[in-house]
């Protein structure tokens, strides 16, 4: 493996470790939506980070879905969030599935 390819592999692995943790945080916060006002704030925070980082590490679908979630969470629109969260969940699962 070339130096550049190895560098990219290491960086993607770095992001995927974070993606796994963020997925768990999103699922936990989703479960508290409606009951805990802090849940939507946490979703916004996690989605904001993923929107910026996903595509930077080569996972553009994660960025695009995370951005939609962030917009709704920022607007505190809990009603329309679940389908967007589900789409982001799928994008993260797909990204995690790319691990060798």
């Amino acid at each position: 493996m070339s130096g550049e390819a190895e560098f990219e592999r290491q960086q993607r692995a770095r992001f995927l470790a974070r993606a796994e943790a963020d997925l768990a945080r999103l699922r936990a916060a989703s479960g508290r939506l409606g009951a805990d006002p802090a849940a939507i704030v946490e979703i916004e925070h996690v989605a904001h980070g993923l929107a910026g980082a996903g595509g930077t590490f080569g996972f553009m679908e994660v960025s695009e879905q995370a951005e939609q979630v962030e917009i709704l969470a920022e607007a505190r629109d809990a009603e329309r969030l679940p389908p967007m969260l589900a789409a982001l969940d799928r994008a993260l699962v797909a990204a995690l599935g790319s691990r060798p």
Partner: protein
Amino acid sequence: MRVLVVEDDPDISGLVVDALKRDGAVVDAFAEGGDGLHAARSAPYDTIVVDRRLPDMDGVELVRRLRAEGNGVPILILTARRAVADRVEGLQAGADDYLTKPFAVAELKARIAALARRPRAMSENRLTLGNVSYDVTARDVRVGQQSLPLSRRELDLLELLMRRARTVMPKSAIEERLYGLGEALGSNTVEVHVHNLRRALERVGASVQIETRRGIGYLLTEKPAA
């Protein structure tokens, strides 16, 4: 090249730091704006990369503060893709460039290299050497606290020498900068302006001096301590 990265996302920060270091850059990274501001004030950077959203400070505020202090280091601001207003605000605050997240690292590196290639002082409005400071926008020269009135040509000459302090400016380059195409100038015109500026600086106790490199040009340096 020395780069300061102020970014609170540890993965993005790590990626940028690793990528720049692989290219041979010296990189300092901080997650908080206050630490980044302190670093920017303490060390000479070629470029600063700053995220818009920082936990303790708005990245634009960091840019604004550095510019208010006369710090002209090139700054690239990172913003969210949809935040057009952030980009505008960042540029208006004094950032030189922006990149939206997500971004390609290759593009970030290219933009940093382009910023670092720009003549550093071109973006500075307040030049300082020794006890001489020159506010280019206000055309105001101060030696210590004392104002120093100069002619337009002398101001242009001083600015040129301050922007390239400690570097020999060829006489031909000074002529080109001070005079427009077609303007008539005598063979010793530059010497006359240098002489007058030198006298003016000496008269008010400036701690800088214009040195002559015979047959080559002039350079502005700090006088050695007595």
